[in-house]
């Protein structure tokens, strides 16, 4: 028995300090720069093309002009005001639409009655592109903040609703059964088993909806607004200020990337149990 017991010992995972990846030095390795090579090359080529007069500056300004436009708007304070206006719209739209989608997704994932009452209706509404509602929204809300909030909230609602529902419905039934045997009642079961199990899927929905959030906002702000990045780009078009238009595009790209980064960081913090997030710090 002793020998057998010794043989049967599970192969032990190293229990001491974990094997760490070699610490990164501060010097940036050449391979880390590789992804930036292409965009940098394009900018250089673009600047060269402008400088040699191959493209007209009226239609496509040189990168350096975009930088100057950025400086101008920054100093005048216009940029901060517009970014703030856009960010507030984006965040409030996400909060309103996202929380309704999240709550409905949970309710329909947990309750069969709620699901059969609302899911078919929601699935039908989902097929209507939210931007197709613009004429109606203008009639209902005018061109004020309500219209933008409505459109953004509607846009972010569906990805979050669908993915929350999917996540809740796909929680391992064996774990739910285990929870029941171990005496978990409704709320405890939800808090300890269902919600954490659905979380990876909810994050997928969140990242999807962030993309839709910016898209909707750009359209809503170009349509009619007196502030915001979209408004800045649109009024620049009227004066043929292409550098400001390009600047607006760059800012949208950066804001979108920032939002995605925040979501990714949240994901990594809350899903550290998942082997997929343990491998390394990079995605």
């Amino acid at each position: 028995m002793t020998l057998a017991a010794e043989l049967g010992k599970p192969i032990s995972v190293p229990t001491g300090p974990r094997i760490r990846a070699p610490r990164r030095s501060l010097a940036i390795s050449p391979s880390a720069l590789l992804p930036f090579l292409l965009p940098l090359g394009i900018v250089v080529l673009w600047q060269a093309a402008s400088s040699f007069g191959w493209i007209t500056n009226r239609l496509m300004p040189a990168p350096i002009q975009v930088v100057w436009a950025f400086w101008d708007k920054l100093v005048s304070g216009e940029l901060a005001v517009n970014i703030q206006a856009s960010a507030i719209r984006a965040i409030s739209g996400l909060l309103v639409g996202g929380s309704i989608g999240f709550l409905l997704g949970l309710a329909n994932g947990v309750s069969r009655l709620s699901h059969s009452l609302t899911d078919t209706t929601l699935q039908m509404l989902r097929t209507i592109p939210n931007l197709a509602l613009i004429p109606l929204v203008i009639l209902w809300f005018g061109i004020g903040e309500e219209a933008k909030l409505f459109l953004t909230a509607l846009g972010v609602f569906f990805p979050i609703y669908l993915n929350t529902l999917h996540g809740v419905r796909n929680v391992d039934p064996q774990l739910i059964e285990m929870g029941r045997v171990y005496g978990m009642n409704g709320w405890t079961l939800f808090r300890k088993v269902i919600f954490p199990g659905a979380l990876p899927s909810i994050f997928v929905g969140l990242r999807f909806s962030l993309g839709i959030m910016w898209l909707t906002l750009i359209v809503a702000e170009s349509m009619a607004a007196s502030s915001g990045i979209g408004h800045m780009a649109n009024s620049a078009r009227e004066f043929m200020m292409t550098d400001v238009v390009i600047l607006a595009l760059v800012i949208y790209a950066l804001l979108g990337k920032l939002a995605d980064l925040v979501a990714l960081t949240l994901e990594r913090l809350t899903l550290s149990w998942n082997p997929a997030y343990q491998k390394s710090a990079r995605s």
Partner: protein
Amino acid sequence: MSTTVRTKNVWGNDIEPEYAARIPRQRAGDRGVGIRIEGLAKSFGDVPVLHDLDLEVPAGQFLAIVGKSGCGKSTLLRLLVGLDTPTSGAISFVGPDGADTEPSSRIVFQEPRLLPWASVIDNVVVGLGEGVGRRDARRLAEAALAEVQLGEKAGEWPSRLSGGQRQRAALARALVSQPAFLALDEPLGALDALTRITMQALIERVWQEQGFTALFVTHDVGEAVALADRVIVLDEGRIALDIAIDQPRPRRRGAPDLAEIEGRLLAGIFK
């Protein structure tokens, strides 16, 4: 059985203490409950899985249930822990005073079923249910983990454990509330042959120490014979064979007496 506990392996690294090397401590007291099953039947739709089942299990007994797959052994276990309700018949638990009780029962599944988003110790705390203070819960869970020799893995995610370690954590979760009745539904079925032997010794030891009534479902007759006080063979929803094994513990695998019993059981299964 005299053993010396080695702490280093041939490469000089620390090894985990052997389960079998520790002599069971004195029994904590007879916590076990008796089980009385009368005329039990269970069918799913029109398909009868169990019928006319009568069984009396004395408190503290280690009972193994074997049988071909589909014989109803897992169903019987699920009925006993309340995961299913019987179609007819009655299950009652008898306390030490001879009166019917509602025992604290726990089950270990074939899969560990640990919450992947909770650390090993938090998974064990789940076994305590509600109403235990945070500090007490931690202390009890640590003790249960030490009992299955997993103390140093308390803070790990389950995904970092090996298959055997996960099942040990699941066992700790079942034991932490000190159940009077423990159901084990093929708990070693998914483990490799060598890990199984270690786990069998572990289960035997904690049962000897804690004195709960154990119902152990397995498809491995050798395992049943090595561990149980009594083995019943289920066939088509009824008890086909009921054999008491009063060999001294710890039992030596392949001993002639045990092999003879194993042969009888196998003959009973494949008659």
